[in-house]
């Protein structure tokens, strides 16, 4: 059987862009930008794009194609091919398990997006927020002063957000936080079965069907129509948002122009004791937190450190311009994030929810907070909101599918080339592993605790770790000359002259500073995640689940290395 490869250069660019474009582009980026300097955030964002995102992407593309030229598409095989040493294959274990574990909870969120789109279009989401707000308003005494009235309005908004949170938990069949006693297992199973499970099953079926069809007829074929569809959906919603004007004449300040200003004016906003405080341009830029937030956003948004690009790049042709492909995919991701994501969510949320809810979600850097807790309130108040709400969540669903597909391919590539499994067997095995994980996320959860902690340890800690290892590996072990020669091979664009210096010193230093400060803030200072790990048995179970997966795949990598050694030994004997 011939090795799989992409059908065209545009195909691989759309697939890699699709892998990078996800919920974070439309939900995380605008929230983080608003909470970290507004328009001023774009300066560290662009610098991080140039010094961190693009160089790491180039590193992964070069390493991936080098592996592909030597017959390997999985990270363990690629690392081993680069050094010629068997033990380096174990570095690649991280690049196999990161996307697999992320898939386990990401596919649930994907199912929620599809479910919400369906619910909006069939009228199931019409009154979730309004009912909660009316209920709260009915219990409030008549307001005597403007301050009391303002406070009551805030309470009503808070009730709306709590209602959407509760709606999501019931829809997803998730045990509410601290609710083990009251929540019978049967109720959870019933809510899961009637709520998100059918959508979760559809997502699994779509993902594994496309993965089964392979690189060219599955992933590339899907991304070829999904990415343009994503642009069309986003443009329709963008036009709707930009033509909102001032929907409520009693609140002239809640206008789309002010919403755009809230996103793009070079003024940040912070919440201090519940009050909104402005942060000036220079104050925002001189705050290290702004730079860390920008670097973190670029890092997560471009999907570097996932291991996905390594595998995708291995299917490129020997003379393809991977430098240009990488730049195209990175700029494509930036287009979705800045030109579309930055223009839709915040202005709309500002008009209907006000600035406090936005900053509250942005400070948590949480896609879930803004997307599933705050935005339903926006669509409920927006003219033709059920249609646009459905379209928005369908857009998120498409973006999520293009990303989740990419999370499965590294493991499929490994199972096929490492263990010699056929497509049918590898898809079945991976389907079983990920289905177990998805059920673990949904049914063992404590509120969103399992999902949150899986995300923290894999999509934060492990990704930082893998990216740091990759950059150091590329610059110091593979060797810059060899690595850059691979990157420049077939390149029609000229690589920057400063790239060797940047890759050898600037990017590793930048990464180490970010990773170090992240570790000191989240891990060494006994942050909330570490505290939860010490105290919460479900968090301990979650970490044990990650470690069990790591151990399982580490054993498989060991078996794969023995198999590759045997194949190579037999090959040499035949030659002799």
């Amino acid at each position, binding site marked *: 059987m011939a090795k799989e490869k992409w059908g065209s250069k545009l195909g691989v660019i759309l697939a890699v862009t699709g892998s990078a474009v996800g919920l974070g582009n439309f939900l995380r980026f605008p929230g983080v930008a608003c909470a970290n300097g507004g328009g001023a955030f774009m300066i560290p964002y662009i610098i991080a794009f140039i010094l961190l995102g693009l160089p790491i992407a180039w590193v992964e593309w070069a390493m991936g194609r080098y592996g592909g030229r030597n017959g390997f598409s999985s990270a363990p095989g690629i690392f081993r091919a680069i050094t010629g040493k068997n033990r380096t294959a174990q570095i690649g274990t991280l690049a196999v398990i990161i996307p697999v574990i992320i898939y386990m909870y990401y596919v649930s969120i994907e199912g929620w997006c599809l479910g919400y789109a369906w619910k909006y279009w069939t009228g199931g989401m019409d009154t979730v927020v309004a009912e909660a707000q009316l209920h709260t308003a009915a219990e409030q005494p008549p307001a005597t002063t403007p301050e009391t009235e303002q406070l009551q309005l805030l309470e009503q908004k808070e009730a709306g957000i709590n209602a959407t949170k509760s709606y999501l938990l019931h829809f997803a069949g998730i045990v509410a936080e601290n609710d083990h006693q009251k929540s019978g297992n049967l109720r959870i199973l019933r809510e899961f079965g009637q709520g998100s499970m059918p959508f979760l099953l559809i997502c699994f079926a779509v993902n594994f069907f496309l993965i089964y069809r392979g690189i060219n007829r599955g992933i590339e074929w899907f991304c070829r129509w999904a990415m343009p569809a994503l642009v069309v959906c986003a443009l329709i919603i963008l036009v709707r948002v930009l033509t909102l004007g001032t929907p409520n004449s009693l609140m002239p300040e809640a206008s789309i122009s002010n919403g755009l200003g809230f996103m793009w*004016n070079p003024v940040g906003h912070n919440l201090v004791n519940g009050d909104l405080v402005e942060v000036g341009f220079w104050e925002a830029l001189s705050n290290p937190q702004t730079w860390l937030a920008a670097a973190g956003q670029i890092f997560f948004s471009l999907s570097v450190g996932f291991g996905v690009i390594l595998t995708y790049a291995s299917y490129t042709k020997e003379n393809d311009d991977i430098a240009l492909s990488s730049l195209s995919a990175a700029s494509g991701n930036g287009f979705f994030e800045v030109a579309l994501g930055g223009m839709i969510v915040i202005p709309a949320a500002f008009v209907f929810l006000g600035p406090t809810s936005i900053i509250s979600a942005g400070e948590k850097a949480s896609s879930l907070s803004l997307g599933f807790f705050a935005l339903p309130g926006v669509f409920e108040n927006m003219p033709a909101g059920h249609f646009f709400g459905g379209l928005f969540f369908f857009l998120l669903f498409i973006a999520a599918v293009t990303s989740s597909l990419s999370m499965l391919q590294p493991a499929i590539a490994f199972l096929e080339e490492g263990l010699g499994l056929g497509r049918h067997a590898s898809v079945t095995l991976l389907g079983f592993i990920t289905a177990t994980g998805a059920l673990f996320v949904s049914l063992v959860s404590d509120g969103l605790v399992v999902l949150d902690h899986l995300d923290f340890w894999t999509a934060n800690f492990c990704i930082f770790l893998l990216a740091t290892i990759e950059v150091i590996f590329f610059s110091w072990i593979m060797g810059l000359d060899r690595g850059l020669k691979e990157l420049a091979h077939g390149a029609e664009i000229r690589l920057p002259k400063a790239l060797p210096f940047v890759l050898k010193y600037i990017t590793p230093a930048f990464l180490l500073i970010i990773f170090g400060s992240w570790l000191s803030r989240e891990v060494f200072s006994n942050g909330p995640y570490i505290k939860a790990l010490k105290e919460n048995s479900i968090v301990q179970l979650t970490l044990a689940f990650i470690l069990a997966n790591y151990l399982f795949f580490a054993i498989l990598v060991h078996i794969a290395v023995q198999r590759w050694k*045997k194949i190579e030994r037999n090959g040499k004997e035949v030659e002799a």
Partner: protein
Amino acid sequence: MTPAGWIIMIVSVFGMTGLFAWCIRKVLTIPEAAEHLHSQSDIDPHDQE
């Protein structure tokens, strides 16, 4: 929306859109490369009997 906000928005949005459009144009105008990939499947392990 202040004038500085307008400038940042226009530069950011059109900058990213322009870069992406330039890349796609460049990709589409460069002819596809011919290739031969050496893969593991090129190796005959002779251990399948």
